[in-house]
């Protein structure tokens, strides 16, 4: 009996230690990134680093404001394209889809998640970039925009990223909607609401936290995506006001230049990683706060 109690205690300890692993991992990531990134920031000057608009590493100018703005632009674009289509598709999957075709469709969305980003990149480069170039030229000749752009643009990256976050959003939203007890839906129907009204006013609000979780995951994927984006976004490290122009993202800045960078340049790139990391922290913290607020309601 005594040995059994001992085993219980021991295993409880094991579980506890395992649970600490994720805390340890985050701590390690923080320590190593910050230790390598902070010195560069202080050398360049924190404010100069964050708000500088000039990125010319060979001339010792390290301003990453264009990249920060770039990441925000393409992520916002990805949300505009990806979120509504993703949510509506999951509504279809959960509520409309005939049983016979559900399985293949479900498998297909899972497949979408398994396609490596390099493929999305080449697809974007060969298929979407020319489309956007024509689109820009058409707008230009119609006199709507001043600069037609050349296809490698914020808009292109937004479209491709929107595609890439679809499976994430569909997966989480659909399962959240399925988790809503069916009597909610049936009750709403019984009260005379149409199917659509029941879905959008009863089921989706009830599945809200799952939907939000899916969107947040999608945002995370969009802001962190690298390989596909660098192929299609142009990577110009400068500010722009047109979505038909190219721009560079934080992730792109790291991957593109990491290979050849030495000295302060390399440290500045790791510091770019730190900024990206802080971004993710802010997003996660604000979502955690939101959730807590919602729980208190």
């Amino acid at each position, binding site marked *: 009996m005594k040995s059994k109690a001992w085993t219980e205690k021991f295993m409880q300890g094991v579980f506890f230690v395992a649970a600490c692993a994720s805390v340890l991992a985050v701590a390690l990531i923080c320590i190593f990134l910050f230790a390598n990134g902070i010195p560069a920031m202080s050398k360049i000057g924190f404010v100069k680093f964050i708000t500088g608009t000039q990125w010319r590493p060979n001339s010792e100018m390290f301003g990453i404001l264009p990249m920060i703005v770039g990441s925000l632009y393409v992520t916002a674009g990805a949300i*505009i394209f990806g979120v509504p*289509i993703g*949510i509506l598709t999951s509504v279809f999957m959960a509520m409309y889809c005939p049983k016979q075709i559900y399985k293949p469709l479900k498998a297909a969305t899972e497949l979408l998640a398994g396609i490596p980003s390099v493929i999305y990149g080449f697809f974007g480069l060969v298929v979407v970039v*020319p489309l956007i170039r024509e689109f820009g030229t*058409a707008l230009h000749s119609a006199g709507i925009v001043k600069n037609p752009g050349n296809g490698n643009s914020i808009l292109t990256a937004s479209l491709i990223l929107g595609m890439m976050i679809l499976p994430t959003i569909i997966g989480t939203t659909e399962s959240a909607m399925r988790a809503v007890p069916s009597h909610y839906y049936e009750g709403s129907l019984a009260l005379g609401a149409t199917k659509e009204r029941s879905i*959008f006013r009863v089921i989706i609000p009830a599945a809200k936290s799952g939907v939000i979780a899916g969107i947040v995951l999608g945002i995370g994927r969009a802001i962190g995506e690298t390989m596909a984006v660098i192929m299609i976004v*142009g990577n110009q490290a400068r500010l722009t006001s047109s979505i038909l122009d190219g721009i560079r993202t934080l992730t792109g800045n790291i*991957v593109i230049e990491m*290979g050849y960078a030495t000295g302060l340049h*390399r440290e500045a790139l790791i510091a770019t990683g730190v900024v990206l990391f802080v971004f993710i922290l802010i997003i996660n913290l604000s979502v955690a706060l939101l959730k807590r607020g919602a729980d208190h309601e």
Partner: protein
Amino acid sequence: MRMKKFIAILSVVSMMAVAATGCGSSSDDAAQGGSDASGSDWDAASSITVVSREEGSGTRGAFTELFGVVDENDNDMTTLDAQVTNNTSVMMTTVSENEYAIGYISLGSLDESLVKAVKIDGAEATAENIENGSYKVSRPFNVAMKPDLDNAVATDFMAFIMSTEGQQVVADEGYIPVSDVQAYAGEAPEGSCVVGGSSSVSPLMEKLIEAYGEVNPNGKIELQTSDSTTGMTSAIEGSYDIGMASRELKEDEASQLEGTVIATDGIAVIVNQANPTDDLSVDQVKSIYLGDVTTWDAI
């Protein structure tokens, strides 16, 4: 109701965008057909899409230096409007898809079925012209190892690269070999070594390793493809026996490593095949990359 409205509005916006790109698609098909035929709809007044490699890349360093795309302090002054890529195939695909694009790549990677290499000051980008000096845009492929490295296979492999047989491989792959080399007289030692670094040198190194495997089946050579800087630092740290760089060694690297030029690689300036331009001068390329000239007819 708020949720519904919100979703509805968002969807309408995105649908419109999708529909708009859909419209673009049909006109695009027409344009593509035209460019394939003869490039008759080439519009010289269009702005140039300038494509560049990333800051710090060996290719870009050599390019900006040789074309003088620098200010008085030798700082890279490539226009900020230039698209940047770190990938040769993205560079080639972009130029082959965009009629008004210009870019530059390693001569060894040039695929003439996709893009067109322009002459520089009348000289065609070929190995012969680089050797006789009429085509000036080239850079060295370096390998480096620690002077006191104790690895028989690595030393023997280096001897092989710098032999007639090794340099034959270099020439076969379209790079410019090093002259005055001797025939390989290695002792075919047993063992293994790690070679790693620049992705530009990698394709050549792969061929060299395979050729070496035929003369010395006992030596096992591992190839790591990363980049010039990783190649050099890893060679210093010892995780690579031989490092590869597609640029000159930097001072702090040269102080700890012994560098050897194993080949010379040309840099080809490429344009779309629909582009009627065949010949550019150094100054024209320079002004394009400085951003002084932004349309093709202004050259």
